[in-house]
């Protein structure tokens, strides 16, 4: 049953590769399909607790990563692996719950359950970060706006969202340059107590606010001369969503619903230890595999 489900989901993954708007050479995939698939992966990673299921999810993510753009994969994974390491240490040595004891003395108790739980938590982080790295490498902000437009989100809210996201980076850069200016003026910006650091940076707030207000006037001018808002506005959508992709997306959604039902009604996918015979082998090889896969950069 479990393996039937997993095989079905893996088959769904390959459907993207075979029938999606995809080219092996141009590394393109339909943003709608990819974003829904990534959302389904994130959802399933939160739904399952079993490290086996989660590891298979990660493998699926990795397969997709090989066929789409993934220039942010290495950066995201670097931070994920640090987090994973600390989660493992923290849970293995400090949680100590469960009945399958691996090691015990007066101070410390390590169990298979705590080990599996630590893996699950860490794997979730890795999967979520991996999904976001693929998302950020492949889907532009304009495409996100187009996807939301496609699903009939209000135009004004979308333009506001697009503007906020576009100018947030500029504001962040200005803030960082202003900190440099304060350093050039002899302000000890990174020494002293937290209170001193906050006080040293206080002039930045009003300056950033003034600059943002000024920029908002320029943006309003630009919107006005570009004819926005307009009753006649008609979005130019480059993203198509043909029936084939609708079918693929529907299959992901259906599988996610089935997975939810299996977890809620039968508890499948939530077991920390499914098959005791393979646990040692899995627990020893999984981290190694994870490390190797997360560092591969064939497509970078």
């Amino acid at each position: 049953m479990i393996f039937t489900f997993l095989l079905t989901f893996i088959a769904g993954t390959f459907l993207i590769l075979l029938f999606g708007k995809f080219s092996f050479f141009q590394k393109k995939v339909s943003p709608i399909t990819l974003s829904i698939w990534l959302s389904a992966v994130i959802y399933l990673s939160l739904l399952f607790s079993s490290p086996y299921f989660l590891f298979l999810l990660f493998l699926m993510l990795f397969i997709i990563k090989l066929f789409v753009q993934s220039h942010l994969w290495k950066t995201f994974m670097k931070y994920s692996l640090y987090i994973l390491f600390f989660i493992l240490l923290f849970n293995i040595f400090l949680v100590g719950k469960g009945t399958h004891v691996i090691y015990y003395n007066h101070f410390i108790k390590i169990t298979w359950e705590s080990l599996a739980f630590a893996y699950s938590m860490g794997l979730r982080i890795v999967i979520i970060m991996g999904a976001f790295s693929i998302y950020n490498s492949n889907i532009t902000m304009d495409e996100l706006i187009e996807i939301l437009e496609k699903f009939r989100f209000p135009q004004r809210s979308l333009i506001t969202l697009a503007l906020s996201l576009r100018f947030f980076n500029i504001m962040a850069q200005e803030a960082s340059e202003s900190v440099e200016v304060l350093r050039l003026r002899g302000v000890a910006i990174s020494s002293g107590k937290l209170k001193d650091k906050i006080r040293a940076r206080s002039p930045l707030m009003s300056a950033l606010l003034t600059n943002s207000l000024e920029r908002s006037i320029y943006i309003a001018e630009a919107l006005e001369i570009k004819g926005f808002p307009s009753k006649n506005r008609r979005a130019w959508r480059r993203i198509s969503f043909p029936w084939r992709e609708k079918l693929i997306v529907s299959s992901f959604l259906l599988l996610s619903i089935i997975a939810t039902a299996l977890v809620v009604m039968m508890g499948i996918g939530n077991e920390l230890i499914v098959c005791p015979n393979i646990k040692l082998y899995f627990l020893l090889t999984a981290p190694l595999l994870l490390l190797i896969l997360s560092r591969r950069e064939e497509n970078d």
Partner: protein
Amino acid sequence: MIEFLNYSFRYASASNPALENIELKIFPGEFVLLIGDSGSGKTTFLRSINGLIPHFYGGSQRGEVRIDGKSIKNFPPREIANYVGTVFQDPENQILMHTVEKEIAFPLENIGMKEGEIEKRVEETLDLLDIYPLRHRKIESLSGGEKQKVAIATAIARYPRYLLLDEPTSQIDPNSAESLLSLLERLNDDLGIGIIMVEHRMERTMHRADRLIVLDRGKIVGDGEPRIIASKLDLDALGVGYPQITRVAKRFGVEMLPLTVKEGRKSLSRYLKNVRVKEERILLNDLIGEVLNIEFSYGAHRVIRKLNLKIYRNELLGLVGRNGTGKTTLAKLLTGLLRPQKGEIRILGKPIEKYGEKERSRAISMVFQNPNIHLLGDTIYEDVTYLLSDKERKRAENIMKELGIWELRDRNASELSGGERMLAAVASIAVMEPEILILDEPTRGLSYKFKLRLSSFLKKYIQRHSVILITHDVETLARNATRVAILSDGRIRVIGNKREIMCSSLTYSTQVNKVAQGIEGVDKKILVEEDLEVIK
């Protein structure tokens, strides 16, 4: 046709009119250059055409502005956009979308154009401006010049009859500026799009324009063919200046003023034979800064490679080079904002990393390209005197007076022009009197008047300290530099006396030097008009 019919406008918060009794006609296909000192009403003039006045900015108005016989008052900017495209000074603040093609499509979406038609227009516009390779690029990955071209593409995507440009080259480097201006010339010649442009770079724009309109305190003081207006009016006195070659010709009393180097060769040859460069003695022996074999990379990208440099007291060292060659990175390394991965930087004999923040700000400091990030207080006076003792405040007053911004001391930065903001930013750093003051592109977007003020200040500053000037502005460099260094691929390729480096250079010589190089019997060391000494 655009008509100003006895038009005056005063902003709601102002006591004086921004424009007064303007009466003129601009015909389709004209290339109009609009010049004037800061606050002369240039931007208001453009806003009155694109409808931002009166529909966006409130105030009192007299007379009217018409486009093709229709009064601006009666239709909003979004409709006027069918006749007029506008490009503002800073491309960063006018591009709204995240990718190039979506930005160009945005105004077309707003008029409800069909998808197929939008596709066609985007395609044509990209081809017309020769920016097709940028089509799918993210805006943040573009250079300043590319962003400004995208802004122009967006403005002309609706096929307007006129294109308004407010200092379109002020935020971009000279090569990008040249390419942008050639593009505008092509749009004007080939498509007949009327160009109305506000610009300070006279040497690049004056010869391209059919008509020059000069504004002074809201009034038109000159309107006509550029050469005639340049000979009738004293543009230096009005604060806008001439192309260097025109100024030199005017000084010699040449009747038919040249506007380009080519014209200068014909009209200036006999005059330049009668002059020579004044003698100058430069003695640099007090070493105050030393860069020893430094290297620096951003990730895998090597920016600075085994760079060595010496900085002496009483010199102005010009640092030139293409965009992205590491000039700003070098400045950040010198000031300790970045740390070299190899090598050492010593200021006044002490390694830069050994300085405390306050002590370092007195040894070396820097003014960034963007003056806004320097201006953090409620008033300019607060900005300049931030963290200063009472004794030092007197110095601040003197520096502000020297830079001509003392009168503006109670104003907020947002009320000042770009040039005034830059001078305030310079004052805010110079007031700490660092031994080495670094200025990163301080003259970008500055009018002639402000450039002169800055030059005069720098000349005084180097009497006691040193200045490193990172710039593409060869005229300012020629006027002020002691030595010039050319940076390329993270290395200093050449360094020496400004005349050794700039005279006969293909890239870094001034207009008048280019003329001198082509004439037999003329002193080839001439760089600026201040150099000249009459010998006959």
